[in-house]
């Protein structure tokens, strides 16, 4: 996050918040999207214990587009893993698979470096992401 040996000033620091599945489960789909968008617009990077479903993701993209203000908010960076394939028994029992961990942040800060099946590698680069 800063050049080697150069400390970030307090006002330059970036919050990275881990949001529990319990908190996410309390929200309706709309409330969840509003919460995420508000936090990201405030410059926070969120790591969601339960990610978003594909329909929630497209809803988030749509609402993000409406909120873009060209000099202050250019959109979001979002990476996560989808639902795991349910096992035979889980299918029979009707267990709903939730999407796995997702990281979301403002596109001007958060930059995805690499993503594969095991790791999502991101960097927070103030003023240089996106």
């Amino acid at each position, binding site marked *: 996050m800063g050049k080697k040996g150069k400390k970030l000033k307090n006002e330059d620091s970036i919050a990275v918040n881990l949001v529990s599945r319990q908190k996410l489960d309390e929200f309706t789909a709309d409330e969840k999207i509003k919460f995420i968008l508000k936090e990201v617009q405030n410059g926070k990077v969120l790591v969601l214990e339960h990610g978003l479903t594909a329909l929630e*993701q497209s809803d988030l993209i749509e609402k993000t*587009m409406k909120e873009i203000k060209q000099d202050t908010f250019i959109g979001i960076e979002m990476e996560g893993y989808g639902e795991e394939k349910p096992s035979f028994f889980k299918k029979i029992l009707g267990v709903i698979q939730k999407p796995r961990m997702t990281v979301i942040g403002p596109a001007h800060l958060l930059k995805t470096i690499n993503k594969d099946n095991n790791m999502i590698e991101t960097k927070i680069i103030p003023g240089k992401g996106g």
Partner: protein
Amino acid sequence: MGLFRRRSLKSFLRRIFGKKQAKIGIYGPPNVGKTTLANRILQDWTGEQMGSVSEVPHETRMAAWENDVKIENNGSSLYMDIVDTPGISTKVDFKEFINKFKMDKDEAKQRAKEATEGVIESIRSLDDVDGILLVMDSTRDPFTQVNVTILGNLEARNLPVLIAANKIDQKTSSPATLKAAFPQHPVVPISALTGYNSDDLYSHMITHFGKKKSRKKRR
């Protein structure tokens, strides 16, 4: 009434008499060659053009429709209404247009504003199509969130999807990587620019989109 308002008499009669007709959307992230592919399909079957192409992202900022396009392959045919959609992305930065493509500030801001509206239109139009031709750039990493989000949406809606692994004319292309990344969907390598392997694409489109499938409503 809505049915009669939205469809031409010709296409309605086709449905009555059992000929296949489908609304096919061409989707994907910006700059993967959606409009180039739409132009290729139209050139091959109607002799027309869908839209202009550019190396600058978000060249297509409004969905464009072409109705009643008939494609044929090995004695089978499919009538389609084709929509070429704006690229879907999670961010639009006007400074990218200035810094990378030397646009002036006002032009870049206008393009960015229209691009955001285009993304919204693309997402909303998913509710109005019967099948998706998802275009991916076979020279790039397939695991982008936009690709995953679009595919997840189509699976949730139970929409048939055919992945066009585009740009195989380029040396760095790797359609095999796309096939490995999305084994649950048919992947057809193609060069929309040169037309290479387009017959294979048309064959897949007829068999894949010709089937009737019940779709799920959004949410």
